[in-house]
Each structure stands twice: as structure tokens, then as C-alpha cells.
């Protein structure tokens, strides 16, 4: 359902993404992993229209959506969340989710019913009247998820939804994400928390210096020497070589 081909974006001399390609279908949860600064968030932003790529194409459900404005991409069913949570601070949890639900209906009562239903799907039904500014990090991450879910997406791009959570909270979100996928929504996620990636993802793309350096089943990818080098750094590789010579 999503085909990204040779996508590139540079900031001055820095190639944030450098000819990255990936493709995914609805029936899988795909992880986009890589060390810090690999370009994961920029790639997400370029796919969802928040950043205009310099070259390359993004095709969603057979339609070229490269450089389409973000709101239009969102309406086509490709919806992102943010690594740094972005709640509507002066709205309650319910009202936050309703803003998402309003993407599918103009009717206040329908939007409200839908928001309540979504809230219970992500385990926030007891927080509906809370001000979103008073939420814990874990609850904010759930709210990000709930809002995106309320728009009836076909594909969710989840940017680090588990960063900053404790293992119990991670396990809870993992269950929620699994259920979302089972309901027929495609998922592409970036994640630092390997516990979550291992529990969730069927497939992984590994990004380093803006390039896809490996792709495949997670267990295979994690043993790829190029991937190990990317994570542990070239210094370790040199050290190994030095040891071999000695």
C-alpha cells in the first residue's frame, strides 16, 4: 500500500535521507530502525508531507502523493504521530480525540461517540475529562495514538510511540498497537526500544546515514554485519581488525 522510491532530502551539506526506498503492505507491522541521526524522523516527515523531498517518489494506494500537503495526505488515510507528543494543550483528552474524529464526520455527537470508543481502545476511558496538559508521558503517547486512530487511517506512521516509557507501559502499548494492526490498519513505526520492535515488527528496514542498509525479517536483519557496524560504530570494526592483525 506504500511504495517509497529513492527518496532524498538534504539540509545544506547534510544528506538527511539519501535515496531511501521501502515498501509495505497492510498485513504487516514494519519497523524502521537505525542509530540516532540515521534520518528516521526526516523520512517519516517526507512520507507524510511535512518535509518536501528533493527527489524520489511516495506512492500510497497507487497514487503519487509526493509533496502533497500534509493535511491532504492525512485525509487519504496516511496518518502520522509525533515523537515529541503534540497535544492540544488547552483541550481535554476527549476534545483532543474529537479533533481527530471530526476528520470523518461534522456531527458533534457522532464525533464524540467515536472519540469515547477510541479512548477505550487505547485504554484512556478513565481520563476523558482530563486536561491534556496534565497527562503523564505514557498517557500523552496514548493520546497521540488515539487522535490518529480517530481519523480512520489506513496506514499509521508511529514515530517513537514508546520512547520514555517504562517496560510495563511499553508492554501495554505493544498490545494496543497489535490490536490496531489486527483491525486492518497498516503500521510503519520507528522505535528505539528494541523490546517493542522485537515484540511487534514482522519486518524491519535499517536506516543509516539516510540510506537503507538492510531489509528483511527482524531476526535476520539484526545479525547483518553492516547493521551491527552501524549501531556499534566503525571504531569497533577497526578495533576488531586491529585485534586480528595482532
Amino acid at each position, binding site marked *: 500500500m506504500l511504495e517509497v522510491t529513492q527518496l532524498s532530502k538534504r539540509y545544506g551539506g547534510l544528506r538527511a535521507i539519501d535515496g531511501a526506498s521501502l515498501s509495505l503492505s497492510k498485513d504487516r507491522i514494519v519497523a524502521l530502525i537505525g542509530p540516532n541521526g540515521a534520518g528516521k524522523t526526516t523520512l517519516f516527515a517526507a512520507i507524510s508531507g511535512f518535509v518536501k523531498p528533493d527527489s524520489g517518489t511516495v506512492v500510497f494506494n497507487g497514487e503519487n502523493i509526493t509533496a502533497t500537503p500534509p493535511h491532504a495526505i492525512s485525509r487519504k488515510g496516511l496518518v502520522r504521530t509525533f515523537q515529541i507528543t*503534540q*497535544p*492540544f494543550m*488547552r*483541550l481535554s483528552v476527549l*476534545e483532543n480525540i474529537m*479533533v481527530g474524529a*471530526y476528520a470523518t464526520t461534522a456531527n*458533534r455527537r457522532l464525533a464524540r461517540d467515536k472519540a469515547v470508543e477510541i479512548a477505550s481502545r487505547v485504554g484512556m476511558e478513565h481520563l476523558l475529562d482530563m486536561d491534556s496538559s496534565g497527562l503523564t508521558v505514557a498517557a500523552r503517547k496514548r493520546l497521540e495514538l488515539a*487522535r490518529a486512530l480517530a481519523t480512520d487511517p489506513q496506514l499509521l506512521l508511529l514515530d517513537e510511540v514508546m520512547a520514555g516509557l517504562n517496560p510495563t507501559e511499553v508492554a501495554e502499548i505493544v498490545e494496543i498497537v497489535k490490536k490496531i494492526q489486527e483491525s486492518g490498519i497498516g503500521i510503519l513505526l520507528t522505535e528505539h526500544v528494541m523490546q517493542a520492535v522485537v515484540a511487534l515488527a514482522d519486518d524491519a528496514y535499517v536506516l543509516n546515514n539516510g540510506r537503507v542498509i538492510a531489509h528483511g525479517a527482524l531476526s535476520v536483519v539484526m545479525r547483518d554485519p553492516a547493521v551491527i557496524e552501524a549501531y556499534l560504530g566503525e571504531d569497533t570494526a577497526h578495533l576488531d581488525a586491529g585485534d586480528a592483525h595482532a
Partner: protein
Amino acid sequence: MASATRLKLPLLLALLAAVLLYPWIFTSNYAVNWGMLVLFTAFLGQSWNVSGGFAGQMSFGHAAFFGTGAYAYSILVVSYGINPWLAWLLAMVAGGAMGAMIGFLSFRFGLKGSYFALITLAFAEFLRVMADSVSFTQGGLGILIPLQSGAPMQFEHAWESYYLAAAMCLVAVLIAAGLKYTRFGARLVAIRDNESAAMALGIDIFRQKVLCLTLSGAMAGAGGGFYVSKYLYVDPHIAYNLGRSVEMLLVTMVGGAGTVFGPLWGAAAIGALGELTRSLSQSPGLSLVVYGVILIAIVAFLPGGLTSMLGLLRKRCRHHA
């Protein structure tokens, strides 16, 4: 929640009754005109509130819409002899068109925050200079609406304009309440709180902002038309006065931006304060000094305005109970 709603209805009815009965209790022309000005200022504040309060697009030049409405009304009535009520309607359209145009130009280029405030200020100043120099506004001479007894939209008694201002205020409150309970309003608030998140949820922020400034401009345009019909004269200074823009944002910030009744409380408070300073001192600049101090105090200590003070008090009472 339910008890708060139950409490609110009698309060609203009491407020409505107070507004309706005021000219019967304070019968002097001065008092009735004072009440009219409070309601009229609240109406203009509500226009600013739609874009500045709900959508967070803080304009410093709402006089651009007010003045355009004022001139549209005057020119249509005096030069074209159009029925004043129809001219009033067209003044509203003109204000809305000006809102759409300024909104389109500013938001197309992504102006936000203080940049948006400055560009709106510049537009209002530009219009003032234009009105001073082109012939169809009669330049600095201004336009005088001939006084005709019994002509439509001319007010023989103070209470007539008072009740018209009250009706406008009611409509404005209904518009604000509408924003509180509709998708359009929810989207504006979402844009105010976080533009990126709003975009990610499929909201076309450019379109919503232009629509919002159009609505706001139409309201201010209607205000301009009403003003001329009451005072029968307009010139560039009256129409596009910076003081007008400031007054609109002042009453709203003081009362509570982004709330349904904020502009009303703000206009009442500022109106009462104006009377007070006038009775205490003869120097005409004093009220402006006091306004400035109050605005600073509100922004520093009570950013939610007078409306939020009620909420804070209620919370404190609950803690004590």
C-alpha cells in the same frame, strides 16, 4: 458538570434580563448610550475573539474590517442612495471580503504570531492612508450621513440603538457559542494550540484560518456599519484608528480570549473603568494609562482573563468545602 450547567441557565437568563431592562432603569440618555457602547464594544471584541481568541491569530489591525464596513455603509447610503439596512448587510460583506483578502495574503505566506499582528497593523494603516487620499471616500473631509427623521436605521432615541447593539451582541455570543460546539470551532482551537498536530489530523489550516478571518471581518464590518448609522459621520481616522484595534483586543483579553462571554465581561469592566477614571480626573490621557497597566497585569497574572478568575474562585471554594 451537570450542576454547573443547571446553575448556568438561570445566570444566563438573569444576564439577558439585565441587558433588556437596563434602559428602563437607567433612563438618562447618557446612561443608555453608555450601555449601548459597552454592548457595541463587546460585539467588536467578539469579532476579534473569533480569530484572536479561538483560532489564536492575534490581529493588531481589526480596524481594517471595522473601517471597511463603515465606509461601505456610508458610501452606499450617501453616494448610491441604497436602503440603509441593505447597505448594512453589504458593509458586513465588505468587512468579510477584507478579512478574506488579508487572511489569504498573510496566511498564504505562513505569517504567524507577531508577524501576523504586524501585517494586520500595516494593512489597517495602509487603508487609513488610502481613505485619506482617494476621492470616493472624500479623503480627510469624511462622509456625513444626512440626518433624516424617520429614515431607516436612524435612531431618534438612544434606546433604539441600545437594543440594536444588544441584538448584535446576542448574535455574536451565539456565534462564539457555536464555535465552542462545532467542528469548525474545534478545528480553530486545534490550530491555535498546535498547527503541526492539526495538519497531521487532516485539517487544512490555511483554509480554516482564511474562513475564520472572513467571519471575524464580516462581524467587524457590521460593527462599522452600525457605528456610522449611529454617529452619522466617518473619516479615515474614525474608520481605521489603531485605538479601535487595540480596544477590540483589550476587552477580549481582559474578559478572557477564546471564551464565549469574555468580550462581554471585558467590555463591561473596561467601560466601568473608563467612567471611573473620567470621574476621578480631568486629564484625558489617564484612562489610556490605566488600560495599559490593566492589560499588563492581566497578561502577567491572569492570562485567561476575568472568566478564568471565576473558574479559579470556584475551584478554591471546592477545595475549602
